[in-house]
Every structure is written in C-alpha cells, then in structure tokens.
C-alpha cells in the first residue's frame, strides 16, 4: 500500500476560504446581531485575501490524483467569481437590512457557493464537477429561500430546487453513460480514451446529450430555461444579483472542463447541439423580453439571450472562440451586476421597485444614475463604443473564423431585436415623466461602486486588448 500525501499547496485558496466560511459562521453565532457588520466585513476581507492568495501563487499544477487542476483559466475565473461576489455583498447590504435578511447565514452560504464554484472551476474529474455543482446549487436554493415570509421567494426556491434536482439527475445519468464507455471519471483519461471521429459510439453520444442538456439547464438555455424568469423574479433582488452573475462563470468552466477537457474529440456532435441551444436562446430570449413589464423578468430573458450568445463562442470549437466566450461571460457578469444593482438602488423598505416603469423620468430626478443605467443598457445591447460591443464582436469574429456564417448572421439579427428593449429603458428614463418620486437607497460605498461599474464599461476600453490577450493565453493553455 503506497500512498503519498497529495500536494495541498495549489488548493490553499480553497482551503483558506472554507476555513473563513466556518469562522464567519461561528463568529456570527456567538457575536449575534449587533456585530453583523463584522460578518459583512470579514466575508469581504476573506474573499479579498483569497484573491491575493490566488494571484500570489498563480501556477499550473495538478493535484489530488488529477482531480484538482490549477491553471490560468481557473485562476482568472475564480478571481472574477470572487470580485463579483464582493460587489454583490456591497450592493445588497442595505437591501438585506431593510428586509431583515442581513444574517450571518447569508454570508456563509454565499461563501460556500463561491467554494462550490471554485471546485467546479478546478475540477479535473466528473465527480468533482458534480459535487461542486451541488454545493453551489444547494447554497443558492437556501439563499433564495432565506426570505421566508415572502411567498414569491419560497415559490422560486421550490421551483429552482426541484428542477435543479431533475437536472442533476440528468447530469449524473449522462456522466454514468460516459463512465460506462470510457471506464473512467477522470477527464484527462476520458479525453485520451475517445478517438476523433468516434461517431459510432451511440452510448457515448447519449451520455453527451444528457450532459449538454444538464449544462443547458444550469446556464438557462432554451428549452431548459423555464426556471430562469420565475426564479430571477421571485428571489430577493440581492440573491438574483448573485445568481445572475458569478454562477455563469462556473457554468462556463464546467463547459470547458467537460466538453473541451474531456470530450473535445466529440466536438462535431456537441457543436450541433450547442448551435440549437444557442440560436433558440438568442431568438426566444430577445423576443420574449420585449413583452416584459417587470425589470427583473426582462433581465432574466436578457440573460437567456446572452447565454445563447456566449454559447456561440464555445460552439466555434476553437481556442479563439473559447477565449471570446470567456471574455463575453466576464463582461456580461459585470454588466448584470450593474443592472441589478440599479434595481437595488431604487428599491426601499416598502417596495421592490422592480418594474420597468419605475425608471420613468430618472433623468430629471437623478441624471447621474440615468447615465449609469444608460451605459449599462447600451453596453448590454452591444452598441459601440461600450465594452459590450467588443464582447459581441469577439464572439461573432470567432464564428466567422469557424465559417459558421449563417449562425453569425442570425445571431446579429436577433441582437438587433434585443437592442429594442434595452433602449426602451433609456427612453423611459430620459423622455417620460416620473410616476412617483424616485428615492435612492443604499450607502456611499454602493453608490461609488455602482458608478464605477458603469463607467468602467466605457473607460475600460484601453485595457480590453490586455484582457482578451489574457483570455487567449488562458485557453491556449487549456487545449
């Protein structure tokens, strides 16, 4: 029996974060309500410290028998996940306090969700992908349900939970099919076991379909998107904010690990599946979003269409395409944070203020935030010179280079349709009369961060090239 203690060093950030989640839990338990801001500060501090650890120890390594991968792509995604989470904490502080859900558990569960995402991002084994996914999902279900007195929140949590369980079942079924044919759970070994052009392998294809469907559910791609609008709308906005941003990065990592790290040689098949998911998502999401009156619901459909767009980059099946997708999803997460942050800004003790009509006349009341929202919406619509445009451009570029011209054309046409509902909000803000007085909520730190968030979409332009280059080199490492 020979056994070597695995090298823990690459996983120190995860270990540290887990310890800190435990510390927050215990501290909050003993210090109680009066020290809640301590939990808030400590959570942010531990995320920052974890980021510092990742940056400090950036390396390419494999440990725990190939189950834990440390590479540049993972590091970037983890850093982004944690930055997004910090922004979520800051944006939602006042909102949570107003609704009596500013609890220690909120931070603990958010931190464990982050841990789950980190596990997924680093997974080198299907088992870990599944465990990470469950850790993330379980934390999210309970975060949504935290607001027990709200019927909507409970309903949303229930729907998400049951459909999520169904999707997990589908994922496990697909994984077992893959295990049956290749005899291993290790993604690198799966990659080695499947030969290119191995299309005769029906069971493997079946497994692939199941796995893609499960990921489609997690991303919220049509036709597995049904939960998205209900859950986005029903959840407390502070959780929607989280739900809509960071987990998308983890889902991207999952796609990369599974489809590229493991099943790359079947790209001919998953490419077609993703084309269907992507085009349906873009078309459906953009068209249905037009008819919405609730801001959160509209952003949910917009999320569906953005997911479709980001799948386009993946399905081009080239490192450049993956990099474009990664860039897209990073930018998208950033824009989503800002957009939900605006809803949080308008909400107050008595009302959620999540109707589109709440934005009417914003310009006359608060010109600065009208500008902030305009930047966010215009960037979401993908109009130059905002960064959202560059993200779309990168994806379209990858498609064109893979000679999928018709897909590119359809995608562009639908994003033109999509521009309508984003710009409608701009119109509401600048040209309509306010229905009632608009009060702004949130503290100084939130206002500052939100403004920076929006301005970065245009002032960040000079650094885009740098970011795209990093994404490129991260994914060049992967394949």
């Amino acid at each position: 029996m020979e056994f070597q203690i695995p090298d823990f060093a690459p996983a120190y950030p995860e270990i540290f974060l887990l310890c800190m989640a435990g510390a927050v839990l215990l501290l909050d338990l003993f210090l109680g309500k009066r020290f809640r801001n301590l939990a808030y500060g400590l959570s942010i501090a531990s995320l920052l410290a974890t980021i510092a650890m990742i940056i400090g120890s950036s390396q390419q390594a494999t440990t725990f028998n190939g189950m834990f991968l440390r590479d540049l792509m993972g590091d970037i995604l983890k850093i982004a996940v944690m930055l997004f989470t910090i922004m979520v904490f800051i944006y939602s502080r006042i909102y949570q306090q107003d609704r009596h859900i500013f609890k220690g558990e909120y931070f603990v569960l958010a931190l464990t969700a982050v841990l789950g995402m980190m596990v997924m991002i680093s997974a080198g084994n299907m088992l870990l992908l599944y465990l990470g996914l469950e850790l993330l999902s379980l934390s999210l279900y309970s975060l949504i349900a935290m607001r027990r007195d709200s019927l909507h929140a409970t309903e949303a949590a229930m729907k998400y939970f049951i459909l999520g369980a169904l999707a997990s079942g589908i994922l496990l079924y697909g994984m077992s099919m893959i295990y049956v044919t290749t005899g291993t759970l290790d993604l690198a070994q799966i990659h080695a076991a499947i030969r290119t052009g191995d299309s005769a392998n029906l069971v493997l294809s079946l497994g692939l379909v199941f796995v893609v469907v499960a990921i489609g559910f997690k991303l919220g791609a049509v036709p597995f998107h049904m939960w998205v609008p209900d859950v986005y709308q029903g959840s407390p906005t502070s959780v929607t904010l989280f739900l809509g941003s960071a987990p998308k990065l983890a889902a991207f990592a999952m796609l990369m690990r599974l489809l590229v790290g493991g099943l790359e040689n079947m790209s001919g098949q998953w490419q077609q599946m993703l084309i269907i998911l992507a085009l349906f998502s873009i078309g459906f999401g953009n068209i249905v979003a037009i008819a919405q009156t609730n801001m959160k619901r509209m952003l949910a459909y917009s999320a569906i269409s953005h997911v479709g767009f980001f799948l386009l980059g993946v399905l081009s099946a080239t490192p450049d395409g993956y990099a474009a997708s990664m860039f897209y999803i990073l930018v998208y997460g950033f824009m989503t944070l800002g957009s939900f942050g605006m809803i949080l800004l308008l909400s107050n003790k008595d009302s959620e203020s999540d109707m589109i009509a709440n934005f009417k006349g914003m310009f006359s009341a608060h010109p600065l935030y009208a500008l902030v929202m305009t930047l966010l919406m215009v960037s979401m619509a993908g109009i130059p010179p905002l960064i959202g445009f560059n993200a779309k451009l990168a994806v379209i570029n990858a498609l064109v280079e893979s000679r999928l011209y018709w897909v590119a054309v359809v995608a562009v046409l639908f994003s033109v349709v999509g521009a309508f509902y984003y710009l409608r909000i701009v119109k509401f803000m600048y040209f309509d009369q306010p229905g009632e007085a608009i009060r702004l909520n949130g503290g100084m730190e939130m206002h500052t961060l939100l403004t920076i968030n929006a301005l970065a979409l245009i002032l960040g332009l000079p650094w885009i090239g740098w970011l795209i280059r990093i994404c490129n080199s991260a994914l060049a490492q992967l394949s």
Partner: protein
Amino acid sequence: MTFEHIVFYAISLILLVSGLLVVTVKNPVKAALFLILCFVSGAALWLLLEAEFLALTLILVYVGAVMVLFLFVVMMLDINIAEMREGFVRYLPVGGVVAVLMMLEMAMILASSKTGLVERSHPVSHGADYSNTAEIGSVLYTDYVYPFEIASVLLVVAIVAAIALTMRKRPQTKKQTPSRQIATRAGDRLRMVDLKSEKKQP
C-alpha cells in the same frame, strides 16, 4: 443461464415494478413503502456485485433513516390525495407517449450494433475473508480524500441551510435554558410558604 442471472432478472423486475408503483399508487404512504422496496432491491443487486458494504449502507441509511423520516412526514401532513392527483389523467397520454418513445429509443440504442460498449473481463472474485469495508475506507481517505471532503462540506451546508430556514423565534415558543437550569440552587426550587390555618366557619 446461471443462478446469478435468474436472481438478477428477478430482482431487477421487482425494482422496476416497484419504481413504477411509487409514482402511480394513490396513497402516499404506500408510495413510500414501495420506495423502500426499491432501495432493498437495489441493495440486493449490489450484493450480487459483491459490494456488501455499500448494500448494507444503503439499507441502513436510506431504509433505516431517510425513509422512516419520510414516512413520518407523509403521515403527519394532511395531504389531500385527490388534489394531488388532479391532472394526472389529463397529462397521462402525452407523458406516457413521451416516456414510451424515450424507452424505445434507449432500447434501440442498446440493440444497435454501434453501442460502442466493449465487453470487459469479469472482475476478480474475492474470497469470504476479503473486506470491502477496509478497501473502500483505504481509497476513500487517500485517493478520494478531496471529493470526500467536499461531500462533507456539502452536508455542513445542508445542515446550516436547514437550520437557517426552519429555526425561528416565535414569542410563544417554549424552550429550556440549560445554564440557568444548572445554576439553580435547592433554595430556588423550593419556596416555603406560611399558610395560616383557616378556621372553620361556623
């Protein structure tokens, strides 16, 4: 067809039928009982595969703990069966067709010559003194220590979440305060009251 084959098919049949019954019987208590039957047959299949530890664990954990809890819940809640089954007949045709078609598809895949499945050699049979508890233990804490730990974190999160979602302080909740109970002295527990004897009224 060996004896093992016969046992396998028999148990599998029980598993499938009881699984079907779980979703079709009207009484939820019965459904839970069929679910227990499913687990037991599953455990039997694992026994056939010489995975005795797993089989026993399945019965201990799922049958012994989880399902009992389930039964409690089902019995304690007043479930309106008629309301729950509403729409069952309405959706049965569509759902049934899809289910049958899906089953057919799977069957066709298995019947196809291109399954891609390779016949692997029969795993080595071990003697009666072979402990698969020890084997599982040794890989679980070495090769699989990472997923094992993550699974345990998952359980912690489940506990935290369950407590956070269900524990609430209602004004009428009655609860003990252990520290005060321990700190009491005999004098606190018993109070001597002087009662004046009453005189009988005439």
